[in-house]
């Protein structure tokens, strides 16, 4: 790895101050499992001058209910989220999503803030420098997205614009089903963004001097059916080809609330509102699930070789609803 200056931030604002000072030339490091691959692959056109360790900020790894919110500190490890009794009992979709990430070692290291902010996996974008790269694709200011004409089996079937990479975060999909918001810290103070508004085709809502501080989820006080399903070629390690998170409340056999989020199909997690509408007020059965599944992918526009993702998404939505 090429060298850089390294700082340990002790507090959130120290981290933001350093980001501000190095104006786009500093990066934050939490779990390191994504950042270090970025630095080693040198696939970005610019190499950071500074790495700021934020693991040294104490007390930012909580998982707690406070008032009408569940609050998760940005530095909470995925392994803690996956094994938290509170989350497993009441926010199981998030615990399942966290458990589905990568491998035990990575979950011991990676944080939820990092999982949400990790860079996309598009293999054109990530093509390493030292074997004839990097590729200057649209995401790096180039003129075209090579995935459109090339092998796009893992790329977007919805919402791509100039860049067709998908959001690789599993926890973001669960958080979308939980109506989560992201609290962001920056030099100007704090602000909140809905998880579904956090991602954009070319990146995310963070300004260069901001960091994710906390995840907020409306507190769950009633029983709900929650499910996270992830389609991959292998159970561990793989990023989702398609994932689905559902949060469904049923009273006396009738669906009173349904939230369905799709992952790895678009630049961010996508709420399938039309599919949710299909279920609300209905008895959950095979027909309802199939109809909702069809509705969930109604506006999908596959690229040249990823139409299978539509079929897979439909299957997962149906399975999650009927689970």
């Amino acid at each position, binding site marked *: *790895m*090429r*060298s850089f200056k390294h700082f340990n931030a002790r507090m959130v604002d120290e981290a933001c101050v350093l980001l501000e000072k190095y104006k786009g030339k500093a990066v934050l490091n939490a779990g390191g499992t994504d950042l270090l691959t970025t630095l080693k*692959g040198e696939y970005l056109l610019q190499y950071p001058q500074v790495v700021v360790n934020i693991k040294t900020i104490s007390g930012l790894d909580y998982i707690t209910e406070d008032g009408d919110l569940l609050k998760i500190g940005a530095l909470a490890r995925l392994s803690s989220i996956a094994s938290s009794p509170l989350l497993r009992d009441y926010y199981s979709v998030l615990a399942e999503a966290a458990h589905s990430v990568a491998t035990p070692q990575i979950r011991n290291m990676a944080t939820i803030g990092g999982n949400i902010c990790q860079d996309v*996996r598009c*293999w*054109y974008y*990530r*093509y*390493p*420098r*030292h*074997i*004839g*790269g990097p*590729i200057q694709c649209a995401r790096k200011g180039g003129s075209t997205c*090579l995935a459109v*004409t*090339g*092998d796009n*089996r893992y790329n977007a079937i919805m919402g791509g614009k100039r860049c067709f990479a998908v959001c690789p975060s599993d926890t973001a999909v669960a958080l979308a089903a939980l109506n989560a918001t992201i609290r962001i810290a920056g030099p100007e103070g704090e602000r909140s963004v809905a998880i579904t508004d956090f991602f954009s085709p070319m990146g995310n809502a963070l300004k260069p001097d901001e960091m994710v501080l906390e995840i907020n989820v409306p507190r769950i006080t009633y029983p709900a059916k929650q499910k996270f399903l992830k*389609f991959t*070629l*292998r*159970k*561990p*390690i*793989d*990023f989702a*080809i398609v994932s689905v998170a559902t949060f469904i409340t049923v009273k006396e056999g009738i669906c009173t609330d349904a939230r369905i989020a799709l992952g790895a199909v678009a630049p961010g997690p996508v709420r399938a509102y039309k599919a949710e509408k299909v279920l609300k007020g209905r008895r959950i059965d095979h027909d309802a699930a199939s109809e909702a599944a069809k509705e969930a992918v109604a506006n999908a526009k596959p690229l*040249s*070789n*990823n*139409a*299978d993702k*539509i*079929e*897979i998404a*439909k*299957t*997962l939505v149906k399975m999650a609803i009927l689970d």
Partner: protein
Amino acid sequence: MAGKYRFIGKATPRKDAMDIVTGRARFLNDLRLPDMLYGKVLRSPYPHAIIKKIDKRKAERLRGVKAILTCEDVPDWKGGTPRFARVLDRKVRFTGDAVALIAAESEEIAREAIGLIDVEYEVLPAVFDVEEALKPGAPQLYDEFPGNVVTPGTPFFGPECLKELIMGDVEKGFAEADVVAEGTFSFENIPNPLPPEAPGVIALWEEPNRVTLWVSNQFPYMDKITLFHVFGREVEVRTIGLPCGGSYGSKLMSWQIQSYAVLLSRATGKPVKMVMTKEEHLAAFTLRPGSRMHAKVGLKKDGTVTAVSGKWFIDTGYYSMTTQAQVAVALGEVQIMVRCPNWDLRPVIVCTNRNASGIVRGFGGQELKCTLVPILSLAMTKLDMDPFEFFKKNYIKPGDGYFWRDGNWYTCRGVDFTKAMDKGAEVFGWKEKWKGWLRPTAVNGTKRIGVGVGVHGNADIGEDASEAYVRLHPDGTAMLFSCVTEHGTGQRSNYVKMVAEVLQLPMERISGAPSDSLVNPYEFGPAGSRGTYAIGSAVIRAAEDAKRRLFEIFAPKLKVKPEDLETEDGEVFVRDNPEKRLPWKAMGVDRTITGYGRFDPDYTLTNCMMTFVEVEVDTETGKVTLLKAVNATDVGQIIDPQGLEGQLNGCLGSAGIDSAIFEETIIDRYTGHMLNSNMIDYKWRTFLELPQIENVVLETPFPSHRFHAVGVGEIATSPGPSAVLMAVANAIGTWLHEYPVTPERVLKALGKVMSKVRKGA
């Protein structure tokens, strides 16, 4: 049979076990020499281009950079078959091809220097498809190979090297057939055997023309020979083999990185270490050859094969070193799988703009079978013939013959594998699970179960020559000199075990000399499952020779004839009067005894591996899951049960069964970038996806060596992939014509996803 022997067939700890489990085993990258430099390669961003200009001045000024070499700075050293692939050329032929070499005080500096070299390219059109490359007007990779067709045959196999399989009269054969089937299948996912330890080397040049290389390879002695020829037969080469962190055949193709390190050491006068990154290993090291076949087969109602004719396209990537050899062996092996009097099978080896093909477990035969077995299956379908019965009937029996790699006809004097096949079928439950062609074994909602079977065997178990020494010491210990490194099969320990059995000496008292070409005699190396029979024979003979010499020395001392003597535990005794004995020390403490053993090639024995698989296909998502695999074989005599189990379980990985399921290299058809050159996107089997595996191993004594054993390690990966394709076809009722069976392909075959023509060169 195990009762016959004191050591052979018993589970014994590997000689290197302690080093491996304590982390003391020193693999190549664990070695550091004083003053060592680190080498790196600047690689091409284009799949096909002429290098117009290289400006290395900026990079040379970087502190810590010791040498930068381009095609202008290096001698005209060449590898490949024929030798035409320059170590550094003015032309680059795949995205990732070598442009310049850098030696620096650290890897980081070398890497930084890469970024400071300016190269001007003239970009040429590239070709990535084997049949496109043959068309008139296609981009030409080499002046030497018009039409991108590589010269067939390899001098290593002699002037009559098998280049095509033409015998009998195919027209007559088709006329005699009850059914004829024709089709095209391709096995072009060109998987990477991907050993965990990346290819690498340390080289130390000594003026005027001598070089020592520390290599990570299963064939250290062959490296010496390969490099001797690459270096224009003017350099004295010594190779020292270290424990090898996996090879699966692939690391014999290390001549390029070895040559780079030698050139950099020659330029700097210092030892140079070069180890590929995993990305280089995936994108720029050798892969399995691509295989595509258009063929027609004729069968009689009873399953007799009357004729096979076809064209076999082999994509070797941007050069070939061993592909001709793989084709020769494959053509031999196909006759072992199906007896047929009439053949017209014509291979054509083609260059394309991707990284080169090299050796992978299965050596040609797997590539050929993956495309021919489905075509045979189309004919079997017409006859409603059970493929297990078909293979059992057609697999070679003692007394049958075949043309082997040198173009000569050999008559098989091995064993009949029918018993092993039957036992395998019984353990798998084939008779209950086989429901007929294109019929699932079971349907569970949206999931369908299918079964398939494949078979593979070679006559390579006695290929090439081996030599060994065994040295006896007066303190009752012995040392084995065999230029073999441990690369996972446990063979270094197994040879010690063979010596132990011959000398009746505990294994702890026998050590293996380092695999240094300077101290050991000729050794081709463990390949093609030859380790047990070929290398084993040389080792056994060396031990027997040492024992004979020992007895000659002890006979006068014990006042008997040498043939009346025995030895055990470092003592020599009279067979009929065991009380009469002397310790080895009695030979004199100023003496050692060295025995020599040699094995000369023998192509009259074949091995066999039949693999049964059961898969589950999810018809909604297209996902294929391997549920069960049963391997059936006959090894003559088990040498080490645990080592054998490991080798047979190896059927999944290292470009085996999983190349039918999810292993593939994915190359952009415009830019030539290998897109999945990382270990997340290149798929490999994890602990959470283990199918049930059962290994059926019979021990029918072979007429091989004194322990009647033959090897089967190399062939374990080969029958599985075509069996998986067959199982998927049976599960979903239609054939896929390509590997691997991705969700997209399965859903297309099921009509759930529309086919789109893939654009590209």
